[in-house]
């Protein structure tokens, strides 16, 4: 980054020297050093160490063995599928529910302040705290959720102990915790829409539904892009909630790539753990880059 500072100052001299010094290149330095040393360097190092058997002191180059092992183990494949499933479910639900809540909360509704606070509140509670609370609430026989369902004569499922359900239960809790942030972003998006558009639509005789479909929805595209990108990336990386609630269980039923990375790290398989990191990195690149390009291109049409 020092190189950046030097060249740009030279390139601008001497006519714009004064302006160049008002915005000095060294302002990048503190951030650049921390970012380069603690983020970029490890990321590049991971490309090498994922190809080794590694003890942190010694590393033996073994080629693509770690990746071969990663894709040979059925439970690791399961983790990969779970990760994508989890990200799609959580970000999809956050978009739909967040948008609906934001539209409701920007309309003339009673107790608006209360509703806003209540929906945002889970964002403040730590993921571990939320995980522990819902683990207790979702207990198959003694949890409040199933005890309440039993009052209505419904036999509640084993939310976290049924291998077919565990991942979805954790995803629901994730939505419960994260939808407040999506709602705030959407509220900001709705508030930013100029009132003229609705007036024009009213003169044209638009119904409420048409208002939403042709004015609100397209003009909220930037907010939607933000919510989808943030929650989708968050979903792909998810670790803490899974770890607090199921530790990837029962069996490997709710393992995600991130929890597999932690398990391999704990077991001392550093090379394999780092290979998992590279797999996650590639997965995010393959899914998120086209997604953001799509979202931004649509934005350009307006």
């Amino acid at each position, binding site marked *: 980054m020092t190189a950046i500072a030097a*060249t740009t100052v030279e390139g601008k001299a001497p006519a714009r020297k004064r302006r*160049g010094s*008002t*915005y000095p290149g060294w*302002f990048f330095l*503190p*951030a*650049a050093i*921390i*970012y380069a*040393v*603690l983020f970029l*360097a*490890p*990321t590049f*190092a*991971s490309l090498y*160490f994922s190809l080794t058997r590694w003890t*942190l002191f010694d590393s033996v180059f073994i080629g693509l063995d770690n990746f071969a092992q990663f894709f040979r183990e059925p439970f690791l494949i399961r983790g990969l599928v779970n990760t994508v499933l989890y990200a799609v479910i959580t970000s999809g639900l956050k978009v739909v529910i967040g948008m609906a809540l934001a539209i*409701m909360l920007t309309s003339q*509704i*009673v*107790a608006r302040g*209360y*509703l806003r606070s*209540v*929906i945002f*509140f889970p*964002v*403040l*509670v*730590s*993921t*571990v*705290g939320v995980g*522990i*609370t819902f683990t*207790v609430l979702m*207990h198959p026989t003694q*949890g*409040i959720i199933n*005890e309440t369902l039993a009052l209505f004569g419904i036999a509640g499922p084993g939310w976290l102990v049924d291998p077919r359900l565990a991942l979805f239960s954790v995803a629901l809790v994730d939505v419960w915790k994260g939808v407040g942030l999506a709602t*705030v*972003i959407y509220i*900001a998006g709705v508030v*930013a829409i100029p009132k003229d558009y609705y007036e024009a639509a009213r003169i044209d005789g638009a119904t409420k539904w048409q208002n939403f479909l042709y004015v609100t929805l397209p003009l909220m595209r*930037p907010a939607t892009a*933000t919510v989808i990108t943030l929650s989708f990336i968050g979903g*792909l990386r998810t670790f803490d909630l899974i*770890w607090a609630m199921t530790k990837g269980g029962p069996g490997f039923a709710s393992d995600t790539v*991130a929890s597999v*990375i932690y398990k391999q*790290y704990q077991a001392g398989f550093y090379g394999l*753990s*780092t290979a998992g*990191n*590279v797999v996650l*990195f590639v997965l*995010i*690149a393959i899914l998120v880059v086209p997604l953001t390009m799509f979202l931004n291109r649509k934005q350009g049409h307006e």
Partner: protein
Amino acid sequence: MKHRASLLGGIAAIIATFVVFVIPFLFIILMAFKDRQQSALRDFSWPAGFHLWDNVVEVGQTRNWMMITAFINSSIITVASVTLLVVFAAMVGFVLARRRTRWNPLIEFLILAGLMVPPAVVPTIWVLQGLKLFGTIHGMILIEVAYNLPFSIILYRAFIATIPRDMDEAAVIDGARPLDVFFRVILPMLWPVTVTNIVVQSVGIFNDFTNPLYYLPGNANATVQLTLFNFQSQFSTAYNLLFTNILLITIPPLIVFLFFNRQIVAGMTAGAVKG
């Protein structure tokens, strides 16, 4: 008719949010008031006696006041990293928004990469060990800064673009040097985004579980989230203590939120959505 419909809708919304959002919190609070025996039932009952203070004291004393140490550690990490984040990210956002050079695309690419790429955990531990920062509070602070810089920079850059350049130029004519322009003219004007940044980042860093789990092992430097997590396995039957713990560590984020509540949406409008 219309008013009646919206009133009914409002009441329905209040009931729905009460069941979905409020009851879990009431559950946490009620559990924190119970004694060990009653809390073991894990039901939604009224506490038989007022045991909150006993629970708080017992949580505090557990494992040689570990909870207190953890609170201090978490607070230091949060305050220090948020301070560094605000200053460093605003500096980058300022120059990035004001000066067009051929390096800008590269810097912008690195920022986006920082948002998307998952940190390479074990190589980072290896780097931290090389710097003698592994398992230290300082190392943890720098990690939080490195991981959260991209988001902060994006917020700042979008907002700085809305501040007219005349401001900088007027200050320069008055004889201000770059540091004066930044710290005395620009930074104060960035307050709305700074608030958003402080709220989002401090809540995120205080509640961070994954990074301390990897980079801050050992009991001496435990953070509140790690303490809570270990608490869960140690006191798997003492639900009163477990939920008192959850209640206690939710207080600091709640205070931050109550302080800045009104300004959050304003900051989001300025930064995230336009960006």
